[in-house]
């Protein structure tokens, strides 16, 4: 499990997709539960430790967010992508709930409206970007435009694009647009951090069955989830290509092992904490003029009877 040491940036590397590398998801174990040298620890011990780290990170996240907000220079955009039932909602509920909701916003993108379809494919995401000093979470994002849209060409038709081939070049241009937008955001103070929750097909089946078996979870299941499961291999291929093409030095992807919810939550919380702290957020120092105004106010308040 992720260690609580000063050299925490190792954990960033461990799961980060190195820019320019070719991702082969079969080389990433969705059931990963511990780093090298920790094999001797039992799963229960690891889990206990992971939960402790998560709790600790939640406090650090809250503090980092307070500074982010006070400083009002940077924003953080968290992008969550995954197959159905991979635990995106759980991450939001158990990790992001550490944040003060006043400065954190979650956006889920549903079926695009006619107005949205008449704009370019990033437009509706753009409108939902976090303001300076805030954390924005995209529960799915513009990356769907190179995933589900790629697998179901009829969605692309609905976008009424100018004529042309929809082959490799077309998708390459979409990756490029995304990289450029993210670069623009970074330059202007919005740090983008992207998590792919990597779930095995077997674990998805178990989670679906749970939703089907437990009446209070029935509502979470949509028949559509099952038909998408039928495209599993296509999705994996689309994810691999997307992860390879859009993990950049300024906006890296992290592949998070997601078969164990506690593993995924702890790793995401650690990477997120590190990412925000690496921005160098801190409480702002006031200018001389501001200090003068405050000093006058202090005197006035202290003298009141």
């Amino acid at each position, binding site marked *: 499990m992720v260690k609580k040491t000063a050299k925490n940036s190792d954990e960033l590397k461990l799961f980060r997709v190195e820019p320019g590398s070719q991702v082969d998801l079969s080389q990433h174990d969705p059931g990963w539960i511990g780093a090298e040298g920790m094999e001797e620890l039992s799963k229960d011990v690891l889990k206990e430790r992971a939960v402790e780290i998560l709790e600790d990170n939640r406090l650090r996240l809250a503090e980092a967010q307070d500074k982010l907000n006070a400083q009002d220079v940077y924003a953080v955009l968290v992008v969550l992508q995954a197959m159905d039932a991979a635990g995106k909602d759980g991450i939001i509920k158990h990790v992001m709930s550490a944040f003060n*909701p*006043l400065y954190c916003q*979650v956006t889920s993108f549903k079926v695009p409206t006619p107005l949205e379809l008449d704009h370019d494919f990033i437009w509706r995401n753009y409108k939902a970007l976090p303001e300076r000093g805030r954390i924005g979470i995209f529960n799915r994002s513009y990356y769907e435009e190179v995933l589900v849209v790629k697998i179901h060409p009829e969605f692309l038709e609905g976008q009424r694009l100018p004529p042309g081939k929809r082959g490799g070049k077309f998708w390459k241009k979409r990756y490029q647009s995304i990289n450029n937008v993210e670069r623009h955001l970074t330059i202007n103070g919005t740090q983008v951090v992207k998590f792919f929750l990597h779930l095995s097909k077997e674990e998805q089946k178990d989670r679906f069955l749970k939703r089907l078996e437990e009446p209070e979870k029935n509502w979470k299941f949509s028949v559509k989830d099952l038909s998408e499961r039928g495209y599993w291999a296509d999705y994996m291929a689309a994810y691999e290509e997307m992860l390879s093409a859009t993990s950049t030095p300024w906006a890296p992807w992290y592949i998070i092992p997601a078969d164990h919810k506690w593993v995924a939550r702890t790793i995401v919380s650690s990477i997120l904490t590190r990412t925000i702290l690496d921005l160098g957020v801190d409480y702002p120092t006031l200018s001389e003029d501001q200090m003068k105004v405050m000093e006058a106010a202090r005197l006035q308040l202290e003298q009141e009877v």
Partner: protein
Amino acid sequence: MKADNTQENGLLGREVFEGLKVKPGKPIHLVEIDPSSDVSERGIEINEENIKAQVMLENRRSLLAEAQDKLYARDRYAVLVIFQGMAGADIEAAIRYMMTGINPQGCQAFNFSQPSSEDLDHNFLWRYSVALPEHGRIGIFNHSYYDEVIYPKVKPEALAKQKIQVGRRPSAFWRARYQDINNFERHLVANNIAVLKFFLHISKEEQRQRLLNRIYDPKQRWRFSPADMDERQQWDQYLEAYEQALNKTSTEINPWYVLPAEQAWVASLLASDILTETILNLGVDFPQVSEEGLTELQAARQQLEAEV
């Protein structure tokens, strides 16, 4: 009469909430309401550090979380929670205490900063209406359209930016705004959005202490705003504007609650319980899958189980 869920759910009693309500037709005087308030009378035990209230709040976070889960799953109702208060009432802290640990996916909070020129070219409710919560969500307003009957009332020149004049009969002008607000909220309720309104009540002396604390604490200094000092200069006028707003816009369906806010945990605890009770009273529960849906689920299950 709605069912009283409070006992069974371990919330503070209905009579506590009733005691905090501004009753329509029974105008209140804020100066007569004790902002520190003998909270033990209301079933909250506190000591000086508010530890008890804090523990109570943390213990019932799961109640609010569960109610919110159902609200979200049901996707039919929304709740709008409005916080108002004088500078230093520390609405931020109240929201933070109440909502930390609550799923941010089903919750959205808004601060309303200076209006843009686009905002000013619209009617005074516009920028607030675009921030309303969607079905299934809790929306929180840190200040709200109620500012529109507070600030410009004390400083009418603010209305110039809206290109509006109070005219010869100020009372008629403000009455029209109260009415607009009441009608707006009635429209929300009719469309499944419950509206909760909390006024965080502090004394002038408490405000002084809090402003000073912000100045003394280097970590808090950035929160200090000279505008707060201006507001303090006109404390009486602002309090009067609040009093009128509360009296004119507390209705049977959308009452105001005056929360004693000198102990932030207590205010949060009260707000949290009233919010939880409100959600539960909407009758939200996890959605039932239809007969047809169940058949589909059954088929899906068989398909999955048959997979190799």
